[in-house]
């Protein structure tokens, strides 16, 4: 377990460092059929995948950018390099086989250490390709599969991939899902067999090093009947003065009576356009638990969706979003209640500071199939100063009478009395406010494994530094 409680030791360089990528393979900037075909060739795609990429590109070109969210004018796809392959021959299963710079990167982020201490398996992606993947032997013995998407696509699970790939999230969903379909690369595939319960988490870490590039990893997880899995994803990148784009896709299939917990600590650098899509399809008695901490990115569009298709299926979403200077983070969740006695619980907190813009956006939809269903949404926003902004846009659409939909939202500021009280006990104003904000975000930190909670609290402390003025 990492002991990082001394907050003074943290500095921004923890995430903001970079190495040379001169000898990496890159496609040229922009998005054309030639580039898509080049990526497909380089990745040695099966024919169906090549066709799928080209079809996705067509859909991408036919769709408009969203007219309702933060502006993405600063993102010029003509300048984005969509594929950057680190200079290594094949994915490593031992850190010793990972090139020095890349290995150093993950060492500095604490990944190999966490793997040794508290994880059942680890995947590490550097720019467009997964550089390292491993799973503890005892997990593999139970039939658990944890590998990179490329290996899965070419190996014995090829049919399973083909059957599920972009079925939960069809490419027609929106422009950036289509973009993903065209240029996706990397990501993880997890398969948890019937009845297998993983008691320690799996983690994938996505590191973005290249300048002016895009990361488009695909995560596909299937938890079979009665299984349990906790998957953690982390992401970070060094800051550049040009736009980077992340348009990953996460597709989760939670079968009958299975449970999947999907935790994310997102800390992309503040030049990132994070246009990520996540969706879980939950069957009878199954449960999806989203835990989401969003701290990074310049612009974010992120709304993990739970589709409750089986009777008694459940979804929980616990999120915190921290928008600081130069950030416009549009986050939230969607739930589709499409079967009897389904249940959703959404609990989010957002913090706006130093000119940051936060939007909580949600949609809870109950179809006529959803009798006996319940949904409770609670969202709270904290305004740290008066130059920031926080909007709450929750939609509810109920088409069944035997339903129970509750919603509450609240917005406010840090109470002067509380700050004063803490200061009267010897805390500085800065420390007092950081403490209050950490407390405010404890809905998420309580749900994370300890070392991730500590990391998240450090991020908050870091963001709160210099907030007095």
């Amino acid at each position, binding site marked *: 377990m990492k002991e990082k409680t001394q907050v003074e030791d943290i500095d921004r360089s923890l995430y903001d460092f970079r190495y040379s990528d001169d000898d990496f393979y890159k496609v040229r900037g922009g998005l054309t059929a030639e580039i898509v075909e080049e990526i497909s060739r380089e990745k040695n795609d099966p024919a169906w995948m090549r066709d799928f990429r080209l079809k996705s590109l067509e859909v991408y070109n036919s769709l408009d950018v969203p007219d309702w969210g933060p502006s993405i004018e600063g993102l010029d796809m003509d300048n984005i390099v969509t594929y950057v392959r680190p200079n290594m021959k094949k994915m490593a299963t031992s850190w010793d086989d990972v090139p020095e710079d890349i290995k150093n990167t993950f060492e500095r982020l604490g990944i190999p250490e966490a793997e040794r201490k508290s994880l059942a398996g680890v995947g590490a992606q550097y720019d467009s390709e997964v550089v390292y993947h491993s799973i503890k032997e005892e997990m593999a013995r139970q039939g658990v599969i944890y590998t990179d998407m490329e290996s899965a696509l070419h190996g014995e699970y090829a049919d399973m991939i083909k059957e599920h790939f972009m079925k939960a999230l069809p490419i027609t969903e929106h422009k950036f899902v289509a973009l993903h379909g065209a240029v996706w690369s990397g990501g993880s595939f997890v398969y948890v067999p019937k009845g297998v319960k993983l008691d320690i988490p799996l983690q994938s870490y996505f590191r973005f090093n290249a300048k002016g590039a895009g990361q488009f990893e695909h995560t596909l997880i299937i938890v079979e009947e009665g299984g349990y899995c906790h998957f953690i994803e982390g992401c970070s990148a060094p800051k550049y003065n040009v736009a980077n784009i992340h348009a990953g896709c996460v597709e989760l299939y939670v079968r009958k009576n299975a449970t999947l917990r999907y935790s994310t600590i997102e800390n992309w650098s503040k030049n990132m356009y994070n246009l990520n899509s996540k969706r879980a399809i939950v069957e009878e008695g199954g449960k999806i638990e989203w835990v989401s901490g969003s701290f990074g990115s310049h612009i974010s569009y992120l709304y993990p969706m739970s589709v409750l298709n089986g009777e008694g299926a459940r979804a929980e979403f616990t999120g915190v979003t921290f928008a600081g200077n130069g950030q416009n983070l549009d986050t939230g969740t969607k739930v589709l209640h499409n079967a009897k006695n389904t249940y959703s619980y959404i609990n989010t907190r957002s913090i706006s500071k130093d000119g940051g813009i936060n*939007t909580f956006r949600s949609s809870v939809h109950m179809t006529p199939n959803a009798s006996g269903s319940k949904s409770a949404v609670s969202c709270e926003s904290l*305004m740290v100063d008066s130059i920031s902004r926080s*909007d709450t846009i*929750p939609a509810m659409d109920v088409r069944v009478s035997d339903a129970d939909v509750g919603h509450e939202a609240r917005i406010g500021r840090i109470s002067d009395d509380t700050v004063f009280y803490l200061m009267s006990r010897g805390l500085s104003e800065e420390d007092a406010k950081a403490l209050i904000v950490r407390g405010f975000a404890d809905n998420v930190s309580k749900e994370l494994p300890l070392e991730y909670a500590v990391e998240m609290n450090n991020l908050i402390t870091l963001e709160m530094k210099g907030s007095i003025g």
Partner: protein
Amino acid sequence: MMKINNLPARTWNHLNMNDTSVSLDLTCAGPLDYEEELPAGVDRVTGRGISPFSDRPLRTGLGTEFDMAMGDTGIKPSGYIVSEKNKIEMPVYQTFKYDSEDDCNVNLMDYTIGENGCLTVIQNFVSEETAKEKTAIVQNRYTIAKGGSLTIVQIQALSDNFTFFSDIGGHIDNDGNFKLVQIILGGGRNYYGSFTDLVGKSSKVDVDVAYSLNRQQTLDMNYVGNHCGKLSESDINVSGVMKGEAKKLFRGTIDFHCGCSGSKGAELENVLLIDDTIVNQTIPLILCDEEDVEGAHGATIGRLDDNILLYLNSRGIEKSEAYALMERAKLDAVAGQIKDKRTRDYVAAKIDEMTA
């Protein structure tokens, strides 16, 4: 086609909540000659009797496009002016009986409340049962000067062949307040909007709406409390009951602009659903550009609470009766906001008629 009831901050288009498209033929539209009881002390003028105290445009709930279309009809507004310190105790009673052969009636009403002036307007909308499709439009615009107060009460019990538009908007200066009570019992297709510009310090708006929808009735709403002045307050309460194949969309927004420090806004929606064929949409927004504010919204949608139902059952009241009681309770609660006894009795009788 015209877009009305625009959501102040847009969201996913596929939800169909951002705005509503209506086609409106205003070529033959003329005003309805409504019955009026006018208490002493109110100046009645024809033509835009409104003189905004600030240079900002006056916005209404149904939106700019709709407001401009009203202006383009050339119909002369009825102006009501209450002078400084003139507190008028008796309400203005306006009864709109849509029993003529007109296809479309448009009435534009402007209210100017002087400093510390006070006025209550009670509007009743009634019709005979006919098969003919008709449109009724009423727009109420107002400016309320410092310390002034305006209350508008609308009771709408039109038959299902009516398309009804109620468009409201105005400015409020320091310490002024606007109170709106709307009871929606009829109308086939209903469009309601209210935009309150809380310009002055300590200005206040209170909105209470109750509706009961059945058959194929639709109700499309847009209520905005636009907080600009310091210490301004808004309170939007909407509650209703839905049966049959009724459709409803409630948009409610508390918009805190930079500089409105010390302001408070609350909105609450409570919907009781009775049939599985209804469509109930709700989108309660809080937009916030100011640190020192308090905003809250809540919504409770669905069946009757299990505990309440059990308690009512334990006293021998069966489920359908329990729902009828709660429906009545929702309408009564808002009707109780009406101070004028004559109107309260009228509403009680209308509700009896409807729930009988």
